[in-house]
């Protein structure tokens, strides 16, 4: 699958890229919300993984934009340190398909992304 990752922390971004490439995915990395929005429109990834707190556009705004422009065809997974109930609820209300709170296990991320792989091919 083609996965777009939006994360402003360089170290985290590299780790996510490494893990996802190890699982055989094509990975598009972006460092902020604006770059993420642009690349989503240009490259049409199969899955979007995004942090919430980012420059220019937040992860929640990205969910809103993706679900409006590409309803039902582009799952969005949130990875965030903001695990408060209100934030999680808002993300799901906006249409997020999954929410992973930091600290998270890379193996867990791998398994969660695989779920969308299965539904992608069925």
């Amino acid at each position, binding site marked *: 699958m083609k996965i777009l990752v939006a994360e402003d*922390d*360089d*170290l*985290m971004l*590299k*780790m996510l890229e*490494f*893990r996802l490439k*190890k699982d055989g995915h094509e990975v598009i990395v972006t460092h902020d919300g604006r770059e993420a929005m642009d690349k989503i429109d240009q490259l049409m990834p199969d899955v979007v993984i995004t942090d919430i707190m980012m420059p220019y556009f937040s992860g929640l705004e990205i969910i809103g934009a993706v679900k409006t422009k590409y309803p039902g065809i582009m799952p969005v997974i949130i990875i965030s*340190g903001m695990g408060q109930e209100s934030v999680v609820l808002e993300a799901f209300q906006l249409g997020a398909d999954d929410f992973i709170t*930091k*600290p*998270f*296990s*890379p*193996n*867990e991320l791998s398994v969660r992304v695989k779920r969308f792989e299965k539904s992608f091919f069925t």
Partner: protein
Amino acid sequence: MISSPLFVLASLVVSLHTLGLVILIFTNLILLILAFMLFFMLWKGTHEKNHDRYRLISGLLIRRAVFYDDQIDPETGIPGTKKATRLMVNKVFRKLFTEELISAKKNIAGMAAENLKYLYHQLKLESFALKKLNSAHWHTKAKAIQELTLMDMRELKDDLFVYTNDKNEYVRMEAQVAVVQFNGFEGLRFLDSITYAISEWQQIKLLHKLSNLPPAHIDISGWLKSPNTSVVVFALKLARNYHGFEMHDVILTCLDHPDPQVRLQAIHCLGEIYNDETSVHLISRFWRDDVRHQLAIIKALQNIGSEKDNIFLSTLLGNDDYDLKLNAARALASSGLKGFALLVEYNDADLVLNDIITQVRGELAA
């Protein structure tokens, strides 16, 4: 007259000489500045190149640890760390690497996090942190304690315990959080001997840390009698949060504590930890304290009050304070049918009270 052209000539020569000197000085100054700028740019360039190289090495090492799936051999550890071990003597690399390692540890859980902890230990970074504990600067100490806590260096919990009563507030706070993280409820034994006050914020942090742990039986009776009033307040919060019903009688004694903050916290606590006599004790102390305490008592009575408290509560309906009236009305309404009937029947020309009664009826209906 004859000397005058000579004088002019002489003056001219002197002026030219001075001018030349000035020009020379300025030229030298400019050359010096240019030389300094060149040197600085060269140094900066080298520094940035090194920094980029260190970041690359650091990132690779951390990723290797995070994604290392095999069982770690205690003799060899995580492979590929020889270069990093040699670089650890370099203060710049060590600082950068430690910061990135800590940042990664904060974001990663599970086996990957364990590997990061192992890497920290393998590169002996805790020894550098321990050295910083001897620093004269409080911020260096506090940062070192925070680092050891984040990297989960439990084996150093005894080394950190001594700092739970450090004279510096930030060092104390970090050490207290550390011992609670490492020892759970057992870590709270620093409350036995702490002489400094525990701030409200620190109490919140500690309670938050404890909330992630499974509940454990803790004996807080000693802390409720502590000469440190912040310890008493914190112990009351623990009693409330962990349903210390066996502490009820000791908590009652806190209603007579000389410190108003302790008395207030005791009232809040008794709103959760009570028996059928608790309301009597609260009401008997009602008029001794200020409005803040009175309000807290009435709010507690909303939860623990019964019909025997109705007469007292109905006397408050005529009070001048709006909040007291409103909460007394709520307490009456929640005490039972008789209390609600008393509220409804209360005959007074006070429009405010009528509005309050209407509001409370609405709250009950909702």
